[in-house]
């Protein structure tokens, strides 16, 4: 069943009502931001691919044609190629996690996380192939059993103990990132293990230059390879230290108020200095650190749930675990450390002027902020299990009028006939006949996202018009 503009009853079970209904009371009126094409993202992707080719080039130039005529030579050569690839990919992986503002705004944290996951698997395979091929190749060359050769490598070759350790660290990180395993680990443990990748970077550094056939000689190749390390370390320092420091000293964010939106959802209002100068788009997120006892050591990503204005910032948080539970008790005045903004789930990344937005549960938060900046005439489908789960209802009504948004609240469980009917190609076309020409903004739980993606594909919406926020880093 669909309820156009339903006023869900019994929604507000919280103690304090939302302070000002989330409207930018007297703040700057949000403007429709100019479009940012995918150009920046494509340039960055192309640069990364070029870098990959360039890092294998020294091997190609060093190896005369026709010179690989024995098994040992062939295996060793493949080992060198995979080694160069692995060395490069490791740097790219760390660079992508550097939180460089450029990357966070052009590619976006969530997209980076997806690339990082896919490249991570590739890196792991490259590292293992490199180690295995070199080992077998050398063993074949020197006519030794593989285990003996491993001993020789560790004993006689410089920096190989740490190189093996680096490979071990990467295997551990890769293993704990397999989805099924990651899901059962506490996030903090997984994250701490992942930080060990810096150790891998350090431990793997030496052997490339003491043993790498293309790198052990001083020369331009070696110099450039070291320069890549310098660039990555500089990006880390900039993205993780300098830029956040500058941001937080400039804006000095602090908690203004915490209000209940529903029994299990709160909104946190923040104030700070010079908020009007924030380079923030609706739909972007920050990584927040609330500086109280118990909370300061964790940073969690939350989207802003209203467009930027010069008076306040707001995040709307669903209580799902220990950390989000503690956020309910934040005191006004608590200082907040924020890193961001990040993300491309914004009105600026639209490809056309009309949009369909699909939100599920707490996925409404970034969508609510995007709506404020989209050109008028959007359509919103809001999935919620029960009327009590509908969030930010008054604001959505206000947006429906102010920005001419058509809203359908689709209430019920996934198997109810109403929701089932809406999430079909025909159901979508019934509500939004021109859906194939619209940008689609999609945010919600994984099940809804997967199902919607499939339906959108069947309905013929081009993939580049679909914008995803998955709440997954």
């Amino acid at each position, binding site marked *: 069943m669909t309820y156009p503009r339903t006023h869900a009853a019994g929604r507000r079970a919280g103690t304090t009502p939302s302070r000002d209904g989330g409207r930018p009371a007297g703040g700057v009126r949000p403007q429709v931001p100019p479009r940012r094409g995918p150009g920046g993202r494509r340039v960055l992707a192309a640069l990364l691919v070029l870098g990959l080719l360039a890092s*294998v*080039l020294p*091997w*190609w*130039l*060093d*190896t*005369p*044609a*026709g*010179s*690989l*005529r*024995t098994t*040992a*030579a*062939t295996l*060793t*050569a*493949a080992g060198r*190629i*995979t080694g160069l*690839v692995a060395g490069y990919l490791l740097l790219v992986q760390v660079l992508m996690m550097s939180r460089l503002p450029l990357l966070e705004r052009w590619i976006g944290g969530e997209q980076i996380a997806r690339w990082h*996951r*896919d*490249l*991570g*698997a*590739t890196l792991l*395979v*490259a590292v293992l*192939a490199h180690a295995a091929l070199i080992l077998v190749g050398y063993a074949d*060359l*020197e006519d030794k059993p593989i285990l003996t050769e491993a001993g020789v490598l560790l004993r*006689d*070759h*410089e920096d190989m103990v740490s190189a093996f350790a680096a490979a071990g660290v990467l295997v551990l990180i890769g293993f704990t990132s397999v989805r099924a395993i990651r899901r059962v680990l506490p996030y903090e443990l997984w994250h701490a293990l992942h930080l060990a990748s810096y150790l891998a970077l350090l431990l793997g550094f030496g052997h490339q230059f*003491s*043993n*790498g*056939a293309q790198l*052990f*000689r*001083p*020369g331009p190749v070696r110099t450039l390879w070291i320069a890549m390390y310098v660039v990555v370390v500089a990006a880390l320092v900039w993205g993780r230290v300098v830029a956040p420091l500058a941001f937080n000293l400039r804006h000095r964010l602090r908690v203004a108020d915490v209000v209940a939106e529903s029994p299990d959802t709160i909104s946190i209002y923040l104030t700070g200095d010079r908020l009007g100068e924030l380079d923030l788009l609706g739909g972007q997120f920050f990584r927040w650190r609330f500086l109280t006892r118990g909370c300061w050591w964790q940073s969690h990503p939350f989207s802003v749930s209203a467009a930027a204005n010069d008076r306040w910032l707001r995040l709307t948080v669903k209580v799902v675990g220990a950390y989000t539970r503690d956020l309910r008790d934040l005191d006004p005045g608590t200082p907040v450390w924020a890193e961001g903004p990040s993300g491309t789930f914004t009105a600026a990344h639209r490809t056309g002027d009309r949009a369909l937005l699909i939100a599920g549960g707490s996925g409404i938060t970034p969508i609510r902020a995007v709506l404020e900046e989209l050109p008028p005439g959007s359509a919103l489908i809001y999935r919620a299990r029960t009327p009590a789960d509908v969030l930010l209802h008054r604001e959505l009504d206000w947006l429906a009028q102010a920005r001419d948004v058509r809203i359908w609240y689709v209430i019920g469980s996934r198997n109810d006939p109403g929701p089932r009917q809406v999430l079909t190609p025909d159901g979508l076309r019934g509500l939004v006949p021109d859906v194939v020409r619209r940008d689609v903004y999609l945010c919600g739980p994984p099940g809804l996202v997967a199902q919607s993606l499939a339906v959108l594909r069947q309905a013929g919406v081009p993939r580049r018009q679909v914008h995803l926020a998955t709440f997954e880093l």
Partner: protein
Amino acid sequence: MRRALLAITGLAASTTAMVVLKSGPGASQVAQELPAAGQPVAPAPDGPAPTDGGAGPEASPSGAASPRPRRSATRAPATRPTAGATSGARLPSAPRTSSAPARPTTRTVTGPVVENEYGNVQVRITLSGSRIVDAVALELPEETAQSDQRSQQVDDRYSGTSGLVVQQQGADLDTVSGATATSTSYRQSLQAAIDRAN
């Protein structure tokens, strides 16, 4: 995950392709046409050449003048010194600077290229009358950091105007420990050069 599988498949396929392009005489034809191969492409040496690179046409005759020829960083266009060439005749750009003042009695004799599993070794000696006054390694295995390091040990011990070759006046030299293969090949090339000189 689909993209990860694609990337991994791509990695495997392109690594294989590159290795295949650089292997075998048939394939080298293809490789020669690739502009990326900025390497002087010479006919592959005869006989098995187990390590890559070291067996390639890398001996730079211009480097022969320096005491450590294989360290020349530039990979200058190289003609492969023909095994058994006597006197520097086939090595046009090899002016002698260090140890052989142009005395009429001085001549150089180059030994053959001796291959071992790590690469090639080729030795050239300078004689004044029948006395060896200098020994230079034109080529030594240098493909990996390990073999480069060993080659350097052998070179330091054997070559030069005051190296073991000059001291012993023959090829009956102690093996440099840890570098047996390179020592042996060095002595073979050296012995052949001495034989040729007499």
